[in-house]
């Protein structure tokens, strides 16, 4: 990906089943999944707990926090992600 491509904004929508409305934000292509996750979690009013972890998915694939939006979006100008609350206990 060229430097020019990395500078364009990506419109990101994050859904979370327990939130009444999705999160919307514009991020630069070099932004990371972790940055989007943090912003979305703040909007949804949720935070990490000992019994659960949160991560983002794209088309069912779990996204690591360090991955960049430009890498995921390729040349698309928008991304739809889903916030997952992973319940680790049982």
């Amino acid at each position: 990906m060229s430097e020019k491509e990395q500078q364009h904004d990506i419109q990101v929508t994050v859904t979370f089943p327990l939130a009444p409305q999705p999160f919307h934000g514009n991020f630069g292509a070099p932004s990371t999944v972790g940055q989007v996750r943090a912003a979305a979690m703040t909007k949804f009013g949720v935070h990490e707990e000992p019994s659960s972890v949160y991560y983002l998915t794209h088309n069912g694939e779990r996204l690591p926090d360090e991955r960049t939006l430009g890498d995921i979006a390729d040349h698309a100008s928008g991304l739809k992600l889903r916030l997952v609350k992973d319940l680790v206990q049982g």
Partner: protein
Amino acid sequence: MIDEESRLNLEADRVAVYEFLAQLGGELVHRADVDDGSLYWVRLRPRSAPEETYVARIGWSRYPQAAPSVKFADGVGGSLTVTRAWPVIAAYRAASFDICKPFTAEGFALHAEWRTGPQAWSMSGNPFLWVVSQLQDDLNHRYQGRSQ
């Protein structure tokens, strides 16, 4: 039989469940002519093994106030006591036909401490979608095969 308000709430929220499952190769089945308004069946596939199909029965008592009973069946309308109908996933207990996690009625019955605090049942957003997405995410990310 659930109350009329619960039935209507389920009908409103199930639209997002249909869409969610369709995107991931799954399916939501509601047999209005056979089941009462409380029962839904979902067909799910693990991301790592799309040739495998699992059917879960989701039974609501009050919606959105209470977590549903969730059990795997050997088909839509099928038996709920077939071990091979269950995926191998941590806290999915095929031997006792229950899911011991804080999104099922069975889990909350076993763990009274989950009824308060961060694991408490949430009525916000779309709890129907929340339950189905928990099942799909566990199949996508914690799946270890089919129970024998």
